[in-house]
């Protein structure tokens, strides 16, 4: 019988530079919930068992370690818990499809400004925001998890590129920090 050892994309790597920390985190299970036409009510019933509801566009809801993240029209990712029985929706396991990077620190927003074509400053992107957008040339889901914190979901196979690009941006932001404008 094979001994199947689980490995995350980046094996839990982390890095701190100039007050910004980048780390791969384990999000737990990720399940895509895609409503069928007419499935809104029955799906809501299923989600209520977790105290959650389908989130509105560009947002996520968090309750007791479970997150439900808007990812598209009538679609969300349930993250951190196994999905309950949900009627009226297609459920698809996405747990292994993504690498999750947590980026935190006062300059985190400056780092992402090098890579993400959306205004991520707190006023425009308050805590609880979930965006489907890009990190440079990669599609991503970006969660605003704290005043100085983000979680970034990228396709698992691209995790190394994502890491490399964010790390590069961290280096440049750090190098600028010592320069007077």
């Amino acid at each position, binding site marked *: *019988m*094979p*001994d*199947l*050892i*689980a*490995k*995350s994309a980046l094996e839990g790597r982390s890095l701190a530079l100039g007050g910004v920390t980048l780390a791969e985190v384990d999000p737990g299970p990720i399940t*895509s919930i*895609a*409503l*069928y*036409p007419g499935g809104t009510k029955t799906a809501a019933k299923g989600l209520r068992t977790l105290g959650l509801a389908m989130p509105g566009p560009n947002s996520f809801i968090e309750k007791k370690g479970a997150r439900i993240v808007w990812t598209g029209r009538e*679609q969300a990712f349930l993250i951190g818990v196994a999905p309950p029985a949900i009627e009226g*929706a*297609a459920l*698809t*396991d*996405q*747990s*292994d*499809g*993504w690498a999750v990077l947590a980026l935190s620190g006062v300059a985190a927003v400056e780092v992402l*400004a*090098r890579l*993400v*074509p*959306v*205004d991520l*400053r707190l*006023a*425009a992107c308050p805590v609880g925001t979930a965006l489907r957008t890009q990190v*440079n*040339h*990669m599609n991503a889901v970006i969660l605003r998890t704290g005043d100085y914190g983000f979680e970034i979901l990228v*396709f*698992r*196979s*691209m995790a*190394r*590129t*994502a890491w*490399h*690009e964010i790390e*590069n*941006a961290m*280096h*440049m932001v*750090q*190098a*600028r920090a010592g*320069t007077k*404008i």
Partner: protein
Amino acid sequence: MRVDGKGLIDRTKPVRFCFDGRDYAGYKGDTLASALLANDVRLVGRSFKYHRPRGVLTAGSEEPNALVEVVGPSNQTPNVRATVQEVFEGLVAQSQNRLGSLRFDLLAVNDYLSPFLSAGFYYKTFMWPRAFWEGLYEPLIRRAAGLGSLSGRHDEGVYEKAFAFCDVLVIGSGPAGLMAALTAGRAGADVILCEESHALGGRLLSDGGTIGGLPAGDWVAQVVAELEALPNVRIMVRTTVTGAYDHGTYGALERVGLHKPARPNLPRECFWRIVAKHAVLASGALERPVAFENNDRPGIMMASAVRTYLNRYGVVPGRRVTLFANTDQARGVARDLMAAGVTVAAIVDPRPDASSVEDCPVHVGAEVVGSRGRLGLSGIQVRKGSEIIEIETDCLAMSGGWNPTLHLTCHMNGRPRWSEELAAFVPMEGAVPGLVAVGAANGSFSTHGALVTGHAAALKAVEALGRKVSVAVPEAEDMPYRIKALWAVEGTGRAWLDFANDVTTKDVKLAAQEGFRSVEHMKRYTTQGMAPDQGKNSNVAALAVLADATGRGIPETGTTTFRPPYVPVSIAAMGAGGRAEGFAPQRFLTSDQASRDRGAPMIEAGLWYRPSYFPKPGETTWREACDREVRMVRETVGIADVSTLGKIDIQGRDAGRFLDFVYTNTFSTLPVGRVRYGLMLREDGHVLDDGTSARLGENHYLMTTTTAAAGLVMRHLDFVHQAFCADWQVRFISVTEAWAQFAVAGPKARELVLSFLETPVELPFMGVAPVRIGGVDGRLFRISFSGEEGYEIAVPTRYGEALFRDLVARAETMGGGPYGMEALNVLRIEKGFITHAEIHGRVTAHDIGMEKMVSAKKDCIGKAAATRPGMWGPEREQLVGLKTHAPISAGAHLFVPGTEVHRETDQGYVTSVCWSPTVGAWLGLAFLKDGRARHGEKIRLVDHLRGLDVICEVCDPVFHDPEGEKLRA
């Protein structure tokens, strides 16, 4: 020469730098131009065509003459404006575009040949003999042309790109820009203030004056301090807004590290993409030269530049300065010079009614008509009435008035409007939605006008944002702008319009004489405006000279327009991040490290990296490894990572119906637990992709796509779903990344698979079942891309690496092992399976012999268009196999043996070839006209490029196990 007590340079911080091999001293805050002038270096460059000696003309990014190469530790940067480059300790710069030294440039001979080098001369000559163009003339022209040099070495510098967002973008920090930023900032709007120079203040730093009773410099300092303290205001210095794009997007170039020695990770430049709800263009105005004979000598400068060098850098570019100007505004330089103790030799003003209050000789109604001094100005000739006055002078400050810096307003095809009153083009309102030009950029040349218009534009912007603010506009100078247009002084000699490209008034007149009367024709014929200054110094004057030559007014002659970028931007800055692997994401398989551990060369497959082959000790070529891996699969068992194939999870009551619509064949009838090969067409009837789809449950399918088309298919499915059947009960999502999938193929595949399943399953060919492996839920498919009994086993990606290593180890105990892309390709050619080498976008189902897979019972995407007469029939090339004993090649073309080889006799082409260790022959897949009817024929394969000419047998494309007995075993 440095002047005591003047300038904003930091005299406590001396800086040493090097120009053309000589060391000089400057101060922090100097530009290279100011520091060279302080050292009395007047000759800094050579012109483009005639190699005329040139000195600094301006004090800004519009500089046409003082272009130098900056030499860094690893590389050199050509065409750097000495007027922008700040000096720093250890800066090394050198002059460019010279053959020999700057003082003795051998190519200066061109100047003597100038009568023969007039506008467009090259269109009329160099035609005979024909071979001489590429052999002689062109290389000579190319070597003489050009300006600075690239080293040819990779640019290893650090560059970055970034995004920024704001409510109000203020471009320029002169009085108008500062007032706008202050107004919007106090209103609480989110403001970005961009300033091209390293210090805020714009012309206030050069011109002085008072604002609200304060010396201008103090007012600037006060405003800057307030702006810096506002959290909603972001100040970006050394940042030039380079382009206005759609919907409030602006490009901007920040010079991050160019003013200091290189430092690790510190970007040289950053290219910003700024998105602004409103923008205020406070970019000021550019002073324009006057064309007179020999107006290009070192020492002849813009009047505003002389004033900037004096007041901002504490430098006077000469001992005896003359002013030649046609506005009252320009007189300020003479007053400042005299106040600083510099001799003003004379003021020459072409306006007959101009004042003459200054304490120096003032010639009104007079013009400068000539100059002397080969490497630097020594004197000028002034014509006053019929009298010619000789004036000894080593610096001529000239001013022909001002052109609003309206370039950005033209970036969306807007044309500026001619103002007779200002003798200048002014911006057309609304030319760039959301952008308002203010101050000098809009033709308000007084400080008062700048403050008022900057304030008003910002007020309007903040009101549109729903904010309110009350800011008092301070008192300031409001001198009227009174100009008598003077573009070119009458004369017979060469008078320069475009300094950088050596375009004179004669050239423009010649263009008109030869019928190039449209302004665009004139520019293209003379090359005026195409030099590094982008016509900033010459466009309007050239237009005026053309208007005069063609007897039209300026507005009738045309307008001048500008395209991005406002200042030249390095490719590296706009392309930041693209270097090396940065150009596109890299996708790695879970087996990547395991493959590399085994020495497998990894090759690109789209964005993925896949193992090419797995070399064994003793193997010296890829072919040896490949042949072994093929035999291994045919004889025992092989393992391949096939996770790159696209996987789409499709669920819902209408899932089968949806697949019936996107595939040519039927999937709604597929039993649960079975897999079917499917063919997908584009709506235009050509093959889009192929792959298998499995029915996992009553309402649950799993589609696979080729690696290459995974994204394409997803987009296609989304379109079909959302456009044509959004109300169906079907949802789908990519699970490509969620599953690691491995092919287990060969006669011993079943044995291997059974050895690791927790509960054995017996799958029929094209069957699928859920399985458990080592406590993990997986999926087992019995499908084959090799022609052998084959399985694909899928597990959640996190277990991919472990499973791959385990499978390979098991296979090895059975005499098998991993196989790579090369073997995979051979195996599929032997079996006649197609890839995107065959379905290359011009191929129909009919061409590949799959027309029977297009169900007659239902509609599907692409079905109708495939019935067009040109899409099927014997004239088309059809998929065949080729077999021979000599090496053949993909890309070769096919001919009937004995016929001539040319386009008209071409019968088809080869798409894939391999040496088949199984068949013991070279095999090919090819497209041949009416090919299915020609099995058994001999065909001649010709590859000129590789020197192959081989007779092949045309046959069925399935070479191995044509009945499929092995698959179904």
